[in-house]
């Protein structure tokens, strides 16, 4: 092209400016080609600012409504957790805006002698990182193997992995607890983590199989021909390319463990501490203070946000997308 063409996005605007010839001028404007018709080319392209149309209003309105719908419960939790309880739980008409903020609910939870929250948070973090890491360590070879099988066989095997997720947790938790009691691991972070792994692993494997299948087979072949052993081809050449999927898989497994309460409750050994969801559950069910539970529900979102922000740069992988032609 000899002359830089006007931005094709704007060409619709020039079409509007010339209602007599609706489509032709805009096409000429987009390709920058010379037009023999004098009247059309004489008109310079007209640039319009983005219009604030009715459909835009509808779109932003819908976004606002949906955001409100999802954020309001979180706001309510914050409200209850960080305002004195006489304004919320013990008030006939709870206010929509906090009349007064307080740390006392949080402090009550931290200083509680019965099921204190700090060890709970520590245990939860321990278990969640264990579940996330183990999901990656086991997930990579499993997913690689599945991705190299025929797609039909791989699909049915992946479905089989989800059997534990299909059954009600409670039916599995009790026999597993018995097993852990027998080996003396009952209530330990490892026992909770291994059990939660049953739920997390299928999801991560499913995600990673897709990622491996998305890679060109010839990348692995090339590495092999270039002298890499099979393990090096997988961990040195393929795994770096599925970093976004790995980050997502880790995050998913981590959050699944962070939220999980059924297994954690059954495997909870009162002699040691409970995970955070279990402790919050206990706060609601009698022996604790409900407002403290609410406050810590609020706190429980903070590590999730931190982790998501931290993994953000790995979650997007456009820079890795290209490199193979054809």
């Amino acid at each position: 092209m000899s002359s830089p063409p006007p931005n094709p996005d704007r060409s619709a605007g020039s079409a509007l400016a010339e209602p007599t010839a609706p489509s032709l001028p805009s096409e000429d404007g987009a390709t920058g080609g010379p037009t023999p018709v004098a009247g059309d080319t004489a008109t310079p392209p007209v640039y319009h600012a983005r219009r604030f149309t009715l459909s835009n209003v509808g779109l932003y309105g819908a976004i606002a409504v949906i955001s409100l719908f999802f954020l309001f419960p979180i706001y309510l939790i914050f409200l209850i957790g960080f305002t004195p309880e006489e304004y919320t739980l013990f008030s006939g008409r709870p206010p929509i805006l906090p009349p007064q903020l307080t740390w006392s609910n949080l402090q009550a939870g931290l200083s509680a002698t019965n099921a204190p929250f700090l060890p709970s948070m520590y245990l939860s973090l321990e278990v969640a990182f264990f579940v996330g890491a183990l999901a990656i360590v086991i997930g990579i070879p499993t997913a690689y193997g599945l991705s190299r099988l025929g797609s039909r066989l791989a699909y049915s095997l992946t479905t089989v992995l989800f059997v534990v997720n299909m059954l009600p947790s409670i039916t599995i938790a009790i026999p597993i607890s018995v097993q852990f009691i027998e080996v003396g691991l009952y209530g330990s972070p490892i026992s909770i983590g291994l059990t939660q792994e049953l739920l997390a692993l299928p999801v991560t494997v499913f995600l990673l199989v897709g990622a491996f299948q998305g890679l060109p087979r010839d990348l692995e072949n090339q590495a092999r021909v270039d002298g890499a052993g099979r393990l090096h081809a997988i961990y040195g050449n393929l795994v770096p390319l599925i970093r976004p999927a790995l980050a997502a898989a880790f995050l998913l497994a981590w959050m699944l463990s962070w939220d999980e309460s059924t297994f954690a409750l059954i495997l909870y050994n009162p002699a040691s501490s409970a995970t955070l969801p279990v402790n919050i559950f206990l706060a609601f069910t009698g022996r604790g203070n409900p407002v403290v539970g609410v406050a810590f529900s609020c706190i429980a979102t903070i590590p999730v946000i931190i982790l998501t922000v931290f993994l953000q740069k790995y979650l997007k992988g456009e820079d890795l997308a290209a490199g193979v032609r054809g």
Partner: protein
Amino acid sequence: MTVKLKFDRVTKRFGKGRLVADDISLEVDTGEFFVILGPSGEGKSTLLRMVAGIEPVDAGRIFIDGQDATHLAPNRRNIAMVFQNYALYPNMNVYKNIAFPLKMQYFPSEEIEPKVRDVARTLGITEILDRRVNQISGGQQQRVALARAIVRNPTLFLLDEPLSNLDARVRFAARAELKKIQKDLGQTFLFVTHDQKEAEVLSDRTGVIHLGRFEQVGPFSDLYERPATRWIGDFVGDVPMNYMPWTEAGAGGQLGFRPEWAEVTDTGTETATVQVSERVGDFSYLLCTMANGWRIYLRTLRSFAAGSEVHFTVNRHVFFETPPEDAATAPSGRPERLPPRPPAA
């Protein structure tokens, strides 16, 4: 001449069905540029992949340097391969891509650097060594893939249609360059393509593969001048070969000739009717019909209108003896890309 690569009755089947290699035996000499030519989907790439060791062999054996390599892992064969899509490692820059095979051989990094720079200079990609592989053009990607193949000095190169992803203009230059590189290295190249021009320009010998077998192996000029079968006569060349019923030394069969082997003159012994006349450069290509209904292509400097009669003499020909049982069906079994010919009257 020593044998670099040898296929010994190699057979390969996809699943339970199609044979892609049907009892193939072939010897490629050291330093030879051997091109495997064939239409798409004839298993050319599969042959190459079996040599590389990334596709298992069903039966038969493959020897590299006289040693049985049939079941050797790809990383133990000391071969280089350029895949059709180049398969550059997207997470590494150009330098690291080229250095990768050396790293796999545990070269110390102070030895890797001069080798990489050296091969980059040869291929003219020194300026882009720091770039990411998705920031360079197709031609440059092809050079990087080639550099990565050359860098550790293998003695057998496998190239799977490395030019097919390039623009026509770049492809022309890359083709000539590839031939020069092979001559300079003096190593054996096994090159797969469906483009007969590439085979013609690059190859010392070409093997044309069809239905899992080598239909003919030899210098490309032989394929053109002396096709062993009618299938080769049709596949090789810009236009399919022409045929006329013929009897030679008492054997019935067909006479095959290329358009330029016939001369269009008013005193010609054969007659045909012009159906379509196409002007290409100085020549007119005439699609004609013979009296028996068979179609032929003729080439002449003169112009003819459609429907007019044209006389010609066949100066050179090849003879295909048709076994009697095949005679009735002889014109069938042709590649799909050709216009169907009416059967012999």
